[in-house]
Every structure is written in C-alpha cells, then in structure tokens.
C-alpha cells in the first residue's frame, strides 16, 4: 500500500514537473496558431523525456549521485563550467518566467498590474523553501497542481475532433508561416527538455533516499507521470485550437490564452485558467529555485538538502535566497512574462544537449551504473535523443530571430 502511495505521489509530482509556464505557453501558442498540426512534436518530445527521466532516476538509484554531481565528476570541471554558466542563465530566466506566470495569474483574478504581485510571490516562494522540507515543497505544490486537470475536463466538454487529432500525431510540414511553426516546435521541445527538470528529478531521488529497490518505481513514475503530464499538454493544444484559433486569437499574452477555458466553463473559465497557471508556475518556480541551489552545491561539493535547517547547509540556503530576488528583478526589468517564457524555452533547447550528452556516457559507466547500465535499445534511443537535441540547439537561435 505504501509503495502504491509512493508511486501515485511520484506520478503526481512528475505531472507537476512536466507542466509549467513553458508547457502551458508553448502548447497554447501551438494550438492557436497551427491547430492540431503540432501534436506530433509534443508526442515526440514526451517519448524522449520519458526515456531521459527514467535514465536520470536510475542513475540516482544506483549511484546515489545527482546528474550535476555525476557530470562534474565524470566529465571534469571544464565541461561542468559550461553547464554551470549556461544553466545559471537559463534557470534564472525560467525562474523569472515562472514567477511572472504566478503574478499574471493573480492579475487575471484581481485586475491589478502583475508587477505588484512579483515581490509577494517571490517572498512566498523563498519562505516556503526556507521553512519547508522537500516533501512539503514537492508534494504540496504538486497536489495543488492537479487543478490543471481542468484542461482535460475542458477538452472533453468542448468535444475534440479525434480523427484530426490522430492526423496531428503524424509529422507534417507547416501549411503557412514556416519560421514561426518551427520556432514553436523548438519551444515545445525546450519546454519538455528543461535541463533543470532532469537534475531536480535526480536530486529529489537523493533527498528521498531512493535505492536499487526503487528502480521499478522510478520506471513507472517516469512513464506514467510524463504520460499524464503530456495528456494535459495535449488538452491545452486541442482546447487552444478549438476555442482560440477559430476566433483568430494568436496568444500574444496570457490574458488571451485564458479565453480557452471560457467556452467550456463560462464565467468560471478565467479564474480557473488563473488557478491552473498560478499553481503550475508556483510549483515549477519552487523546483527551479531549488535546482539553482542544487546546481552550485552539487557542482562544488557543498552540503545540501532541502530537509536540512538553513544553518546546516548555509551556502545552499544562500544560493536560493539570492536567486529568487534576482528572478523577481528580471521579471520586472524584462517585462511581458510570455515573451520571457518563449525566449527561455528556446534557450532551454540550446542547453539541452549539454546535459543530455553526458547522460549517454554516464549510463554506460560501470563505476556509476554497475550492472544497471543501459542496454543496446536504451543507448540507441538516447543517442537519437542526443542527435535531436543537437539539431534543435543548432536551429534554436536562427529560428528565434526569424520566427520569435
């Protein structure tokens, strides 16, 4: 029974990790602009991320090292320094986007300028991490994030065209606006391949003391958690395609995206969208802020754990204490949280190969993985993912200029 509870909690947590401001924004953009034509990108990205999550979790179960720990140790400081600088910049931008997402959600409900909410959100975020334990931070936020199932309910309510959705699962070239199509595709993949997510997942496994006996649970969590997360993201694409696209709404802001829930839920639609956006972004911002502290602590070998009192891991605590206000300042300085989100998702795609490639090496290292190394099929898949990640990284910036 306890195992079942753990699996259920793990799945809920993974949904929380999957669905954040990037996933919501890119799915809404894709649906509004290209209908159901981009569902295949989401499906491809989900399969890739299932594999990556399973492998990262297995690495933590067997070696008791997080991904960042292992990358520093196996690939050396020079390689790690690229990851450190890249992930610091990208995570700060993603943190800004997530804090902005919560602030916009509060703006949707109250009508007050979102900037007023940024310091309040940042303080609440810091307080929860400062006082909370890992399970409170992780499971609490994830359980709240279950409200995003409203997107699935909304999609059923509207009545999706299943045949067209099935056709959307087959790769297809854009019928119009090719640069924007491929930029959105890169954004969708960037939202799924968020480097912070993989390291946060392995760090969580170590916080919760996963061991060899948790390998099957890790597999179920990775597949079902990401699968359920994908179902919600599919629902957003379909809802957006059915409710925003036909009215010519192109999702230039979260306010426009919120209309996708008006058709199924009437006057409750906007507050419900705000609740979904707010809880998903708050959960994700907790993960990103913690991941920044994990990144530095694990990379430099400091004491770290969200379960320790701040005085027991002072440098870990100081890192998130500095990162959160920095993220908040970035939201206010850069403005328009949706723009920050789409830009940071393209940067995610750029950074993805830097974290995915070492995973291929680590999963075949007998010192770390012992007899739990990757089999041929796993290696073929992760090699394909590395190639995809490199290709996407190569086109991310040109597409940012042309289609962003």
């Amino acid at each position, binding site marked *: 029974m306890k195992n079942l509870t753990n699996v259920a909690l793990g799945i809920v947590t993974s949904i929380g990790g999957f669905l954040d401001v990037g996933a919501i924004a890119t799915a809404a953009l894709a649906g509004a602009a290209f209908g159901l034509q981009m569902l295949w990108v989401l499906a491809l990205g989900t399969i890739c991320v299932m594999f990556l999550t399973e492998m990262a979790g297995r690495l933590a179960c067997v070696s008791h090292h997080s991904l960042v720990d292992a990358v520093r*140790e196996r690939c050396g400081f020079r390689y790690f320094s690229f990851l450190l600088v890249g992930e610091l910049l990208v995570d700060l931008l993603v943190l800004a986007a997530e804090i902005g997402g919560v602030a916009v959600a509060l703006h949707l409900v109250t009508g007050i300028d979102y900037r007023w909410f940024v310091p309040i959100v940042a303080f609440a975020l810091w307080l929860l991490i400062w006082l*909370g334990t890992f399970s409170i931070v992780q499971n609490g936020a994830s359980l709240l994030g279950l409200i995003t199932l409203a997107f699935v309910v909304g999609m059923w309510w509207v009545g999706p065209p299943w045949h067209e959705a099935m056709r959307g699962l087959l790769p297809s070239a854009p019928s119009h606006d090719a640069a924007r199509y491929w930029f959105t595709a890169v954004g969708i993949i960037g939202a799924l391949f968020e480097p912070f997510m993989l390291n946060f997942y392995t760090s969580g496994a170590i916080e919760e003391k996963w061991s060899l006996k948790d390998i099957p649970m890790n597999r179920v969590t990775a597949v079902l958690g990401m699968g359920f997360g994908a179902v919600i993201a599919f629902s957003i694409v379909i809802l957006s395609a059915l409710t925003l696209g036909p009215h010519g709404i192109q999702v230039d802001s979260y306010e426009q995206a919120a209309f996708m829930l008006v058709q199924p839920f009437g006057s409750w639609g906007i507050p419900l969208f705000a609740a979904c956006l707010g809880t998903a972004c708050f959960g994700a911002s907790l993960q990103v802020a913690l991941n920044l502290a994990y990144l530095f602590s694990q990379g430099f070998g400091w004491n770290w754990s969200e379960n320790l009192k701040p005085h027991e891991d002072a440098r870990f*605590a100081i890192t998130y204490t500095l990162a959160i206000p920095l993220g908040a300042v970035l939201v206010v300085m850069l403005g328009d949280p949706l723009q920050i989100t789409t830009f940071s998702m393209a940067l995610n795609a750029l950074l993805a190969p830097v974290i995915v490639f070492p995973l291929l090496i680590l999963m075949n290292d007998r010192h770390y993985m012992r007899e739990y190394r990757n089999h041929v099929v796993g290696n073929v898949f992760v090699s394909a993912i590395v190639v995809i990640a490199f290709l996407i990284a190569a086109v991310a910036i040109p597409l940012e200029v042309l289609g962003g």
Partner: protein
Amino acid sequence: MDDSLPLVRDVLDKQVLDPDGCKVGKVDGIVLQPRANRPPRVIAMEISQSAAWRRVYRRLGDLADWLRARFEPGANRPPRILFDHFVRGGIDVHIDMPWTRTRALVWEDWLEDRVIARIPGGRRGGKK
C-alpha cells in the same frame, strides 16, 4: 599494476567525504611534488575555486585567487588535504580526517554566523 590509482579517473573532481560522510568539497586540483631523478610524488588534494577555474582558463583562476585573498574570512592559502589522509577513491574520495580540520568550510561557517543566523528561522537547533 592492480594497486595503481588512476588520479584523474578516481580522485580529480570527485566528492570528498569525511569519516562521518560530511561533504567537504570536490577535489579541484591535485598537487604533485617534483623529485630529482624520481617520479613526482602526489602530496595533496586541493579544494579551491581558484584551482578549479584555473583549469578552465588561467586568468579565471587568478581572478578567483584574488577574490579569495581579498574577501575570504581568515584567508591565507587555499585548503589542501594531504594525501596521507586519503583512504580510498572511486566515485567519491574518502578521507580519514574530520571536515573541521580542513579549512574547506570557512565560507560555510562565516555565512552561517554572519548571515543565516540573522534571518528568522535560521538559528541553530531543532529540525525543519
């Protein structure tokens, strides 16, 4: 050759753990002592940002060194752990001396006393 120790594979960049499993830092550098007509001898493991950044680019190492000399509390030389204290390598490096004797956690102690303890909820004692 069976008792050989591949330094780059099993020591450099690895997590240093004291006898209680406390994290001391990563092995940022390995110090060798040249000897006349004999192979160099491994004398210490260095735990310092300057050693790490110097491996990326020499001037970054110099900058980290200057910052350490300027700002590190009670700074003199970067912390070194003599290789006599090395117990075993692998995916972690185990040493036989407690972290309190390493000087690798001066920043941890300074931040704890000067910053963390002054924030509500940051004082010593109790559990989260």
